């Protein structure tokens, strides 16, 4: 309220108190004064309510912002943790896949992975006539190594032979553990003749290998059977052919690499 406004109010109040009530202006002035008072009261009330609403809205906004902030932080954390869990699962999955497809002792592909690769190779052969060969490798007299030096040494022999084979084969070849002391080599884009050369190299490399048992050196040899995948045969037939050639190598005195020939059946 301004000073002039205040002064007017004071004058009106004293006028209404002092002047005779017979003045015709007295009654309307009294009513006007009352109406004015009511309006002032109402205005103050509206202002109070409006202010209260405003501060309430302000408070709500502040608490809403802090809630949203908290939820955002929580969400970011959930996302971060969830991502890490997924990462962990992915790595476990890879490890599981590796375990399912590789031999525990040697780390070479196992029979399952070899079979998968064989299926792929024979499919490539069927569709595009791409050649491939197999080499079946068996450590000679392995049972007597085991009997004489024990299983642990037998295992080291297998590990060492596996290491030599893995080092000797080419990038595109798959060298896996087929069974106990038996390894299978899958040689893509290789005919039986080239495979026989590689087989001979492997035989030689194994022959050069020395494994120490305590202070005693152990020498091992291996017999190898080679077979090229022929037009009409399934891969299991080619495995049989390689097995037959291996048997021949064994019969010929072991430490040999022999290729399968259809014309020369295995003498029984």
């Amino acid at each position, binding site marked *: 309220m301004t000073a002039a406004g205040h002064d007017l109010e004071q004058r009106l109040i004293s006028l209404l108190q002092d002047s005779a009530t017979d003045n015709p202006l007295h009654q309307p002035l009294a009513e006007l004064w009352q109406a004015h008072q009511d309006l002032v009261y109402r205005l103050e009330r509206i202002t109070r309510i409006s202010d209260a609403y405003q501060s309430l809205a302000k408070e709500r906004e502040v608490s809403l912002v802090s809630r949203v902030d908290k939820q955002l932080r*929580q969400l970011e*954390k*959930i996302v*971060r*943790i*969830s991502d*890490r*869990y997924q990462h*962990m*699962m992915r*790595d476990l999955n890879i490890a599981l896949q590796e375990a399912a497809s590789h031999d525990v002792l040697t780390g070479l592909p196992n029979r399952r992975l070899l079979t998968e690769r064989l299926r792929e190779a024979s499919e490539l052969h069927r569709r595009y006539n791409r050649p491939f060969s197999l080499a079946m490798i068996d450590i000679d007299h392995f049972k007597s190594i085991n009997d004489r030096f024990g299983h642990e040494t037998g295992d080291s022999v297998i590990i060492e032979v596996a290491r030599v084979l893995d080092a000797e084969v080419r990038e595109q070849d798959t060298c896996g553990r087929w069974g106990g002391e038996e390894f299978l080599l899958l040689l893509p884009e290789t005919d039986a003749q080239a495979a026989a050369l590689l087989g001979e190299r492997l035989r030689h490399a194994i022959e050069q290998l020395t494994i120490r048992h305590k202070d005693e050196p152990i020498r091992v040899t291996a017999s190898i059977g080679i077979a090229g995948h022929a037009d009409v045969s399934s891969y299991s037939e080619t495995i049989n052919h390689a097995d037959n050639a291996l048997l021949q190598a064994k019969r010929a005195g072991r430490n040999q690499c022999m290729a399968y020939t259809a014309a020369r059946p295995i003498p029984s």
Partner: protein
Amino acid sequence: MIDLHIPATQSSPEIHSEHAQGRLVLRGDSYPENSYELFNQVFEWIEGFLAGQPRRALNLELHLLYLNTSSIKAMMEIFDLLQAAHDRQHPISVSWFYDARNERVAELAEEFKEDCSFPFDILVMERSTP
């Protein structure tokens, strides 16, 4: 107060509570279809335990491996609940066990631990407990 004895399923952890001992155990993988339904029972049990008089210590024992996103959210809410209780001076502790062969579970437990000021131990187990 009724204790929880929820057996593990392929996708949900075993949930086991011992009101008398103030012990709650969650064990296994957690990727349930309806995690709200599953964890709601846990919230209710914890809230009931914390409301009990006289106040008794609560130990949450975790042997959790994989958690899906909604289970992570539920676990964070459980830890929030425990943090609030701890702030009211309610004795709270968490022991998170992990297999020595899977160190990454420990790293994830660390992430959960980050915002908690109550005792939160991350413990290696050489073998899984019976």
